[in-house]
């Protein structure tokens, strides 16, 4: 059966909670499988360190991703290098897999504009904060790809809450009408801040919303990285080489859970039960894959330790790099508003510079 012909509420699964195979294991070599494991470990470790940086006042508000590694790493691993990621604010895991250095993510949440600029050879869009407003960008990018006869797919990540926004709807409809190579990847982590999935919409599934646009929708166990990989790979293949009867876009609903707070500014104990969190923790994608890889003889204690060490070093290096970046110069305020600085902005910059010279930085920093 084609993966897209399943009932909307019948999620694709590969491994169960114990790491036992319950579906079709995708065709990945050892390195790739270990890569998924390592990148999930990295994302998890990065996340913990980022939260504590915020606690220590070394970083601003930060949106944790723990629990969502399976969906992020599993999907991003399936992408070709030329494909594009159009993320919301929580996809540092996916962006890392696609080449975004983690120090960029840290810089961004440290309030440095440079953090939003991916290296020129990394196909990751800047973080989009207004919910769902980036979905049309992914459709437009994909449309450009199609018009130019390229075969790059645009993968847009967004949350369960995002499906309520008008932009989600309009963008999906355009994707259907213009049959653009867009993968609409919904990280249904059950909560939009304090609003649970059931109160976000009365739709039976989020995958089923695809019905309104004429393209495929499919649910996947988002805590199962191999299932996510498989369904993403299938959707990418379809976007590039659609069969007669199907449109290129796919709406993937990856059912998952955010273990932590919405952001470091949020206290989830106000609105949800520990029980629920516990239930979902048992589905944690990392031990699940680890168990499978150990059972297959691909991982053992030594390799796990080595990975742990590698991951810690990588994250420590990223923190070091981000923290040693110089505070941006005030001219960066003006510099990128237009391709060429308009006269009036030059004048405003001069105003600022003059005052800085006269009264020093303390005149601004209010300390």
């Amino acid at each position, binding site marked *: 059966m084609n993966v897209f012909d399943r009932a909307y509420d019948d999620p694709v699964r590969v491994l169960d909670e114990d790491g036992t195979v319950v579906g079709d294991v995708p065709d990945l070599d050892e390195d790739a499988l270990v890569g998924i494991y390592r990148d999930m470990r990295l994302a998890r470790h990065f996340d913990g360190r980022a939260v504590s940086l915020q606690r220590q006042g070394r970083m601003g508000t930060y949106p944790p991703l723990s629990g969502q590694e399976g969906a992020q790493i599993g999907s991003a691993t399936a992408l070709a290098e030329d494909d594009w990621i159009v993320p919301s604010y929580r996809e540092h895991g996916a962006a890392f897999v696609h080449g975004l250095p983690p120090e960029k993510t840290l810089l961004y949440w440290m309030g440095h*504009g440079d953090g939003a600029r991916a290296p020129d050879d990394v196909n990751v869009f800047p973080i989009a904060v207004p919910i769902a407003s980036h979905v049309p960008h992914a459709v437009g990018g994909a449309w450009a790809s199609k018009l130019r006869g390229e075969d790059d797919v645009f993968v847009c990540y967004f949350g369960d809450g995002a499906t*309520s926004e008008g*932009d989600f709807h309009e963008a999906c409809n355009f994707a259907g009408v213009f049959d653009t190579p867009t993968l609409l990847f919904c990280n249904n982590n059950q909560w*939009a801040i304090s609003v649970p999935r059931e109160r976000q919409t009365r739709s039976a599934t989020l995958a089923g919303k695809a019905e309104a646009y004429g393209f495929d929708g499919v649910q996947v166990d988002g805590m199962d990285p191999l299932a996510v990989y498989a369904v993403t790979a299938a959707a990418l293949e379809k976007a590039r080489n659609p069969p007669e009867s199907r449109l290129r876009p796919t709406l993937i609903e990856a059912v998952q859970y955010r273990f932590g707070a919405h952001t470091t500014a949020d206290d989830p104990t106000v609105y949800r039960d520990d029980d629920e969190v516990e239930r979902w923790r048992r589905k944690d994608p990392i031990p699940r894959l680890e168990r499978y890889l150990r059972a297959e003889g691909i991982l053992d204690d030594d390799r796990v330790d080595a990975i742990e060490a590698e991951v810690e070093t990588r994250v420590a290096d990223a923190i070091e790099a981000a923290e040693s970046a110089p505070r941006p110069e005030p001219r960066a*305020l003006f510099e990128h508003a237009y391709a060429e600085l308009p006269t009036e902005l030059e004048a*405003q910059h001069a105003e600022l510079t003059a005052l800085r010279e006269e*009264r020093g930085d303390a005149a*601004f920093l209010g300390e």
Partner: protein
Amino acid sequence: MSDTQNLTLVQAVRDGLHTELRADDDVVVMGQDVGKNGGVFRATEGLHEEFGGDRVVDTPLAESAIVGCAVGMAAMGMRPVPEIQFSGFMYPGYDQIVSHMARFRARSRGRFTLPMTLRAPYGGGIRAPEHHSESKEAFYAHEAGLKVVIPSTPYDTKGLLAASIRDPDPVIFLEPKLIYRAFREEVPEEPYTVPIGEATTRRAGDDVAVFTYGAMTRPTLEAAEALAEDGIECEVLDLRTISPLDREAIVDAFERTGRAAVVHEAPRTAGLAAEITAILQEEALLYQEAPIERITGFDVPYPLYALEDYYLPSATRIEEGIREAAEFEP
């Protein structure tokens, strides 16, 4: 004598909502996370528990529907108080705001009036992510049919919020979140209103009239104190309502000083400072002794927080600006 509580500005918002929810069954608070969670800034804390999910409503994540449904409710005579989580997220609901909230009364020739109050935390300075620090009140001042209120103290907040909720016309109520918890003030427990459309004098002085509002009121007063040490006395007017402006108070202060500055954190071009300047030179050109200084945010997208202190008018920048106005000699 009425009892008072010592409240922060955000507590005064909550208290104002509480009072009005209690006084009038038609008042409904609605928005993202305003219910069980009590609002991301705790502005609605405990209200869901006390008034239930029909009066304090967690909505799906859709600003246009939040505003648009409130329009429909208000047309039926209810008094919805929708919240947009940050003023930077009002734009997905912009069409509802300018095409309907602002015009429903005029369109229906007064048959339907919209007693709704659209609240949003507003302004910069709290090290927030992108889009969380917007101050675009000029958009709403440019659109007829809306009133735009921006309080700067806990006392005014409760009173202006009550006045807004009871007003027959739609009000945009922007809450300067930088000072949500900056200081406390005695706030009566009783319901009361502070009139929409009236500015208030925060400091008297004869040399320069300084017009400001919201979070900029405090650094402006700070600047005024610094200038006083040099013998420059500022009259500081807190406008409180941006639309309609209290033209009389503005012109009066200017006529007494002949010099003026306007301070806001919003971008300069076509902002409120331009409007106030235009009013002053239309109505009191002959009193004018110096260019009116615009001390404002720059005409750039609001930066990520590492640079926001350079974007926002600081007490020092305000001081220097006012000094220019004070010391200008033709």
